């Protein structure tokens, strides 16, 4: 497997750090580990990594602070590790520029899937194709049509916009706030029920069982994730 690039791993718990490091090394990542936020900022500046994986609860400074500073000079993907009970922290991290998060405790499969999702665009696996398909659905991005088993589905303008936004961020979390801004414009952050209704419409049109969706997933309290 070709070298994936350099990842900086910021985690203060040595066992978790070791497990993550080993899993990433199997996938041909070069891993630089550190347990302090200040140290991480120095490494980030000198090593120019391709990915940052960071725990929010660090012994010296808040992980969110590291993300904030890193985002001032770099657009490299950031993956956050956080606990389940900290939805507001996840949202804060996403607002500050994190690309996705992993909820503790996580399996290695989950970790690698997230890493692949956040680095996909960067590495260029997703060629700008005109057609995109998942399950029984095919989306033609040039003709702007959506079909299921060659049968045309009628989507409204907003539903189509939503769907293409989700597809473009395949596998990654899109926060409620960002989704509202990109689909409904900048003054829509108080209209969160819009997104819920339209995601529901989309599910009814695209999912086999809209109550147990396989592709258009809700991450309660944070946002949505499209899983092909």
């Amino acid at each position: 497997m070709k070298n994936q690039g350099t990842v900086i791993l910021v985690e203060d718990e040595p066992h978790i750090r070791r497990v993550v490091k080993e899993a990433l090394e199997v996938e041909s990542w070069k891993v630089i580990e550190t347990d302090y936020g200040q140290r991480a900022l120095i490494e980030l500046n000198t090593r120019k990594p391709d990915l940052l994986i960071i725990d929010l609860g660090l012994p010296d400074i808040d992980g969110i602070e590291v993300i904030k500073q890193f985002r001032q000079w770099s657009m490299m993907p950031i993956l956050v590790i956080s606990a389940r009970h900290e939805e507001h922290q996840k949202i804060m991290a996403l607002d500050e520029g994190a690309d996705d998060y992993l909820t503790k405790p996580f399996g290695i499969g989950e970790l690698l899937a997230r890493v692949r999702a956040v680095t996909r665009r960067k590495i260029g696996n997703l060629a700008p194709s005109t057609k995109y398909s998942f399950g029984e659905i095919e989306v033609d991005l040039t003709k702007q049509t959506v079909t299921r088993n060659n049968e045309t589905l009628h989507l409204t303008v907003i539903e189509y916009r939503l769907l293409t936004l989700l597809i473009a961020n395949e596998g990654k979390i899109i926060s409620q706030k960002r989704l509202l801004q990109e689909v409904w414009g900048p003054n829509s952050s108080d209209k969160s029920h819009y997104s819920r209704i339209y995601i529901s419409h989309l599910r009814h049109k695209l999912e086999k069982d809209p109550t147990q969706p396989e592709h258009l997933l809700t991450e309660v309290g944070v946002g949505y994730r499209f899983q092909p």
Partner: protein
Amino acid sequence: MTEANRHQKAFVSYLTVTIALTLVTVIAFFAGNYLDLVNTVMLYLLVVFIIALKYGRIPAIVTATLSVGLFDFFLIPPKFSFAVDDIKYLFTFAVMLFVGFITAQQASSIRTQKNLAIDKEKSTRGLYQLAKELTACKDIDDITNILKKYSNSIGFEAAIHLIDEQHKFPTFNEQFVIQSLALTVVKQNKFLDISSYTNAKNPEYLFPLNSANRLIGIIYFIHKSHTHFLEVLVEELNAVADLVSITLERLHFEMIASESKLQINSERLRSSILSSLSHDLRTPLTALVGMADSLTRQIDSKEIKLISEAEGIREQARSMVGVINNLLDMAKLHSESVKLNKEWHLFEDVIGSSISFLKSSLNKHKVKVILEPNLPLVEFDAVLMERVLCNLIENAAKYSPMNSEIQISGYMLNRRACIEVNDQGKGFETGKIDNLFKMFIRGKAELSVQGIGLGLAICKAVIDAHGGEISASNLKEGGASILISLPAGNPPNPVMDRY
């Protein structure tokens, strides 16, 4: 003022009257040629005026009458006789008397008012001083001391009696009459003269201590000597009672404020303990899950037994995280500071995400979701509601046989949005249904099924916080059923869109 004092003052005033009149008469008698009789009258009236100002009404009237007598006897011809030559002097006497009386009346009323003003100023200054001292009070003993000192200065003994929560005066426990009188005073918020009830020689009064929204107690005033009550003092005692009530009220609110400050501090401590506890418990388990997972990937795939043991470790660690999450949830919900992040959601969303969260523990069951078409938006905290549904669905999976069906349904009933979770297990033990939602109660005492009996208690706490209801029952065809209902509210209007 004592009797002796008053006598002395009267003596002094009449002595002054005598001397002044004698002087005027002598001067007028010998200087009569130079002074006109009219001017002599003026001199007499001047004396009346000064006496009235200085000694009051009665000496002034006496002076006016004597002036007329002296004027007639010594100065009006024929001298040394009360007889009058010229009838026109009778008119002079009448006017003189009349002017004298009016002067006496007016001057003395000015004098009374001046004295009243001085008294009032004195009492105002006293009250001001009292108010100033009361603002520095830190407890009720301070107030009592200051009140006693002040009352002493105006001739009273005073004591504060506070009312308790049962609306009784514990200090009057043995004195039924005063107890009931004090209650009347407090309730009617009006002072009462109780001397006649207590057969006391000296006057005794009860003044209410009340604030705008609560009854505080009374002040019991006893006059130190046997005198009649002065109306002027009522106002002053009322003012004293008001000042004391305000001070007591201030102490009361200071106490509440310091208590709530304490409570905030203990809340803060509690939540910081909770968050460090949750971090410290979850971190090793996360490492455990990761390491077990990494083990399963490294073991040769032929070593089925080893792989399944490693997977066992991973699953046990995961379920431990679940238990810790429940404990922390419960602790948070019980801390009385739960802030609901309520928004308008669809049941579909939260049911779907709960099922996908539990995917790994639901692989041995069929999950069926039946939602009434076009369910409206419902207002709830989605994160908490997801925990509720996860707990309910996980319970259903735990307590029902493999490959059976778990059914989740959503519908509207009587303006309430309902979710029902049904399983095909054995149902709840009939006697235990009432206690199901209490902490650490488990439906069955089966030890083979993991859990500590917090799940349903958390569900109830969350649903209660939403103003909803949760109930358990057994299905006719067997199996347990939990029903949640939330108030429907007024959902925002649906949005329209074009194709």
